[in-house]
């Protein structure tokens, strides 16, 4: 059995929003609802879903960059959610994050060396200046940045290079887990592939465990061992990559796969029109029962009555649909 590094138990994050008028009560937006999963050492979990599904909030809640409202995050046997601020700071050297917008996530007044060294100052305050500089130069080399660039400022870099700086900052403390929040979405296609390959190589070399958040299923398929699909803050499907892509158990996963563009004109022409209509409903007032039922091509009356539990549909593969057998019997896109 591989070592369980992280387990997320019934995690919920609720935001309180102002009511529509001055005297109206506040309304609650449940961005993440009752999410549970565990991660083994060296694994990459891909989290997918559309905008507003709670995927970024989930990633940040795990690291306590946003405080979760309920549930626990257990990291190497310790409950992160119960740590004091000081203890959390110590734990943070093992936990890192890479953001979507590479340029906006770097402080424009700091040079590259200062940006990358910042987490080290907190994690290893005893390092001398020289030692710190050596560590910075070493990670710069690892992410493909020339060490001569150490005194330059973020605005002098292209998007791809800025993301390399973000990655260098994320790995300088030699973390064990990195949450990658849409790390390639803002980059040009040819640069995306460079960054994806860099992340994969670093993962191998450093034995990293990754949570890879993306709206892009093709990128997620490339990097992940397991896939978690979120809809309106809830897990609707989780399972091994191959099985989820080849034979999904939830109609939402299936719809996402059917909607993802395929760069092959022959396949693209043969595909059916998307069965999904309309937009996801508001997370402030989610539909009763199964939240997906308002857009689901196979929804029945019973779907409005109860929320379907995550059913085991295959080995280590769960889907929250009462009719998962029907979904699985119908062939998905070519896997």
């Amino acid at each position, binding site marked *: 059995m591989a070592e369980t590094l992280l387990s997320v138990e019934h995690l919920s994050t609720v935001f309180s929003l102002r009511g529509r008028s001055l005297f109206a009560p506040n309304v609650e937006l449940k961005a993440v609802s009752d999410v549970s999963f565990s991660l083994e050492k060296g694994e990459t979990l891909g989290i997918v879903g*559309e*905008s507003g599904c709670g995927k970024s909030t989930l990633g940040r809640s795990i690291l306590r960059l946003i405080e979760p409202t309920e549930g626990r995050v257990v990291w190497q046997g310790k409950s992160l959610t119960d740590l004091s601020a000081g203890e959390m700071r110590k734990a943070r050297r093992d936990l890192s994050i890479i953001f979507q917008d590479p340029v906006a996530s770097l402080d424009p007044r700091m040079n590259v060396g200062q940006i990358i060294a910042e987490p080290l100052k907190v994690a290893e305050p005893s390092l001398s200046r020289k030692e710190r500089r050596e560590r910075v130069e070493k990670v710069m080399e690892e992410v493909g940045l020339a060490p001569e660039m150490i005194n330059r400022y973020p605005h002098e870099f*292209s998007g*791809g*290079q800025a993301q390399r700086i973000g990655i260098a900052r994320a790995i300088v403390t030699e973390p064990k887990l990195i949450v990658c929040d849409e790390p390639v979405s803002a980059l*040009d*296609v*040819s*640069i*995306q*592939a*460079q960054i*994806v*390959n860099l992340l*994969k190589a670093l993962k191998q070399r450093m034995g990293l465990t990754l949570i890879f958040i993306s*709206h*892009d*299923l*093709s*990128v997620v*398929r*490339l990097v992940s061992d397991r896939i978690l699909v979120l809809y309106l803050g809830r897990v609707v499907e989780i399972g091994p*990559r*191959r099985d989820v*892509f080849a034979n999904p158990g939830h109609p939402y996963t299936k*719809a*996402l*796969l*059917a*909607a*993802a*563009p*395929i*760069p*092959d*004109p*022959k*396949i*693209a*022409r043969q*595909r059916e*029109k*998307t069965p*999904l*209509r*309309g*937009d*996801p409903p508001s997370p402030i007032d989610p539909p009763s029962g199964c939240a997906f039922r308002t857009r689901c091509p196979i929804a029945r009356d019973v779907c409005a009555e109860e929320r379907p539990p995550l059913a085991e549909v295959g080995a280590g593969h769960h889907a929250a649909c009462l009719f998962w057998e029907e979904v699985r019997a119908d062939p998905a*896109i*070519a*896997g």
Partner: protein
Amino acid sequence: MVMATRMDTQALLALSDYTIRFTTPDGTVKAVNGLDLTVEPGETVAVVGESGSGKSQTFNGVFGLLAGNAETSGEALFEGRDLLKLSPRELDKVRGADMAMVFQDPMTALNPAMKIKHQLAETLKVHKGLKRREAEAQALAMLKTVGIPEAERRIEQYPHQLSGGMRQRVVIAMALLCRPKLIVADEPTTALDVTIQAQILDLFRDLTADAGTALVLITHDLGVVAGIADKVVVMYAGRIVEEAGVDALFARPAMPYTAALIRSIPRVDRDAEAVEPIGGRPPDLIHPPSGCPFHPRCRFAEDKCRRERPPLAEIEPGRRAACWFPFIDATSATGEAIRSSETLDG
């Protein structure tokens, strides 16, 4: 080497030797360089490129939407009239009526302080001289055509009350109102979720097929291109580097940049351990590389590529490529490229 010959029938849009320069404090940005491009009536042309390729600026120029420091030269003929020579007033008559543009962010085209009804009706009042009541009736019908649910209620709302996907439908409805002959859509689905993107692309496909409208789709996403385009134009550093029918382009890309671009995209329909990135960085448009602009990133570059810029030449009927050593017989995008020496001495 023979330059591509043009058909005698009049194209809907014909750009020739079309060039855009921006004067900046750092130097002149050579954004678009001597473009030759035609769009036939009813045709769907995808213009593909990465940031800085000039794909958006080309059509911003056609619509007269360039920044003040831009200078345009060459020709942009729309049904035989040179758009670059029209007065702002004359251009206004063509825009919106005969050709319309859809942008990535629908809010750039919508007035946040105006009801949907009034924005749509205004277009018809200005261009078609319709009375208010008739204009609003046609606006409502068009909202239904583009698939807006509860159109009667939505038409009374303001843009912020609609979702992103619905706003983009409103913009498409606005573009279609005067039954234009050409729609230029610049990354129209890039800001949308994948399930909404699929709906909007289905909509474009249906509308262009039904109304015979020509569509220019500007995008960085080859996956989107595959499902919708008749013809694909690949741009790099402000130039067309390849042009082909959609099947030929994906099956047998002729130019190393196109081939590399196809190989660099991960696919949702198959397992892979890695993708093949294109090394290096996008070109500097103030000091573009000598010779072929792609040569610093090209695995196959030779001395000639560094010295001389390859012209955009016909390599097969209906196909053009700007490359000294195009892959003529490549069996597939992922297969081993077979290089032809026949074109060596051009």
